[in-house]
């Protein structure tokens, strides 16, 4: 097997093994109800994590997505409360704002040659601040269209439901995989992650690609915000704090190297499922306290980083001997 598939394989093996362990203890975890809920509960995180995967593949980082999710939610709530426009129009406007926001951050990163970490940190403050300015209260969204959207689901055998937002996450992952592996933009992202100088020499349009990467991340954060507002039926400026960290963790557990240039969108999906599984297990168990989630995910993160180190080391020494 090629070494580049090793992290992804390991992630999948660990997911299947831990799922089997959970099922051995609580057979109900195998039911389609639990699986449907796993998808629904993690839909917003998954959609945002797809954007984060592209950013990390290109060697960057985006700390602003949690704030953008909160901003989108508050924006939708305020607009739907005060203006008589259809939610679909509001969705389009919200997506446009989020995409532009990401594009501007990408432009600053490229043209002002500033580290992505600091630029998106400022973006995080700015987006959260804009959410605060719109409203500091939690606003419920009572538009009937929301009820219609929430009522849409595909019934699985066994009583489980793939809700609209769960299905949307699956769709976004599918499109993300296509973009990453079947388009010019996708290869440009991988090339950029391998090194800006080499990418430039190969003829990759560095500026355009950087801007598009952060615009895509912004767009998906906006979409994630819409999903989050559907999920909670409310907009709150303090919501979704720290989602960027969960997304980064999912990406790393999914086998993408944080140095960029190597990884798979599909891995991120497994990363999301592993995080969701840990939470589901702790809920099922009932006696474990919630803080074990954080500690377990931290340990898992550590184990995956170690494994990646080992793989890189082994593949390097193999190349040396060959």
């Amino acid at each position, binding site marked *: 097997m090629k070494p580049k598939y090793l992290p992804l394989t390991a992630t999948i093996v660990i997911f299947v093994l831990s799922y089997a362990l959970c099922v051995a203890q609580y057979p109900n975890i195998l039911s389609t109800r639990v699986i449907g809920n796993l998808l629904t509960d993690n839909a917003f995180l998954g959609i945002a994590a797809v954007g984060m995967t592209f950013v990390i593949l290109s060697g960057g*980082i985006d*700390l602003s997505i949690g704030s953008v999710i909160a901003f989108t939610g508050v924006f939708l709530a305020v607009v739907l409360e005060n203006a008589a426009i259809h939610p679909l129009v509001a969705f389009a406007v919200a997506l446009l704002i989020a995409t532009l926001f990401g594009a501007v951050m990408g432009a600053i990163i490229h*043209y*002002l*040659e*500033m*580290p992505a*970490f*600091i*630029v998106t*940190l*400022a*973006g*995080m*403050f*700015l987006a*959260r*601040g*804009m959410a*605060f*300015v719109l409203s*500091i209260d939690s606003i419920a969204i009572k538009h009937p269209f929301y009820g219609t959207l929430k009522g849409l689901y595909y019934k699985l055998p066994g009583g489980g439901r793939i809700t609209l937002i769960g299905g949307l996450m699956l769709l976004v992952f599918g499109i993300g995989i296509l973009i990453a592996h079947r388009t010019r933009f996708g290869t440009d992202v991988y090339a950029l992650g391998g090194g800006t100088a080499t990418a430039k020499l190969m003829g990759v349009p560095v500026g355009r690609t950087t801007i598009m990467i952060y615009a895509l991340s912004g767009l998906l954060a906006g979409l994630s915000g819409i999903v989050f507002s559907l999920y909670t039926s409310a907009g709150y400026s303090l919501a979704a704090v720290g989602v960027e*960290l969960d997304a*980064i*963790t999912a990406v*790393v557990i999914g086998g993408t190297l*944080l*140095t960029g240039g190597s990884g798979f969108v599909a891995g991120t999906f497994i990363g999301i499922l592993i995080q969701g599984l840990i939470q589901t297990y702790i809920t099922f168990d009932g006696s474990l*306290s*919630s*803080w*074990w*989630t*954080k*500690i377990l*995910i*931290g*340990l898992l*993160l*550590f184990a995956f*980083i*170690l494994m990646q*180190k080992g793989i890189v080391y082994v593949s390097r020494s193999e190349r040396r001997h060959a």
Partner: protein
Amino acid sequence: MTAILRSYALRLLPQLIALAAILLMVSFVFPGFFRLEIQNGRLYGSLIDIFNRGAPVVLLAIGMTVVIATKGIDLSVGAVMAICGAVAASSITSGHSLAMTLLITLGTGILCGLWNGFLVAVLDIQPIIATLVLMVAGRGIAQLVTEGAILTFNDPGLIFLGSGSFAWLPLPVLIWLAFGILVALIVRKTALGMLIEAIGVNRQASTLSGVLTPVLLIAAYMLSGLCAAIAGIIAAADIKGADANNAGLWLELDAILAVVIGGTSLLGGRFSIAASVLGAIIIQSINTGILLSGFPPEFNLIIKAAIIVFILVLQSPPARNALTFVALLRASRKPTERQAR
């Protein structure tokens, strides 16, 4: 001596100007800003308040500067603050003496730093991920220590560290002043600072030229852990309790920002602890200033983001190049003017 002082002043000039501008702006909208008075043997006033409230970020920024100078970053400091606050509270409530509590807490912080340093220096993991592990797990560990509750304590000695005063100044201010001067002296009066900068510029080259890279890297992260421990104690002592969920939340970002505003590059190399401390004070002045000036608190983050973006754009390579270009243009014009005369 004057030459050294002048070079220091030149290095700190942008930060001092930024701070002065912000303080002046605040004093325009809030007239009594610079007033200081002594009550109960302690100085009171908005300026003192800035220094006092800024103590945790200043302390974190001191350790963060050294870590960033080695081309690293420490995302875990906020979580380490929470762990140390929890450890301090649970140790003092379980009957340990103040000295023992401080020893255990500072030891915990150094241990956290040792873990980060081990990952970065020995296992050779990128700093941003290596410290992400403790950032994610740390708050869980802190909650494990406090068992999910807010642990309160009423030991007068520990509380004194957060809200006491000595020689007219609040104790947190004295702590960060003393600690900052101590660290600055240690790195600048020995070759340590230069070696740290060497690692930041090129780790491999420094190792090859005989610098004990792993030891120094681990020491940098341990210093950062120690700073986080002191900040954690102050934060816990200030509210007389350990809040595992909120202590030090997002302070790692403020600390990194302070270092960047202080002009230390995230790419490692030359650093200045004094400039980072000024950066932290600038951030706190913005926070306090916005509160005092009576803006609706909703605008806090936006104003903060705008000021930060402005400072960062000024420091960005293209802006710097443009400034040097203008300076060169002026310098080259002078002789031609003379010739024309």
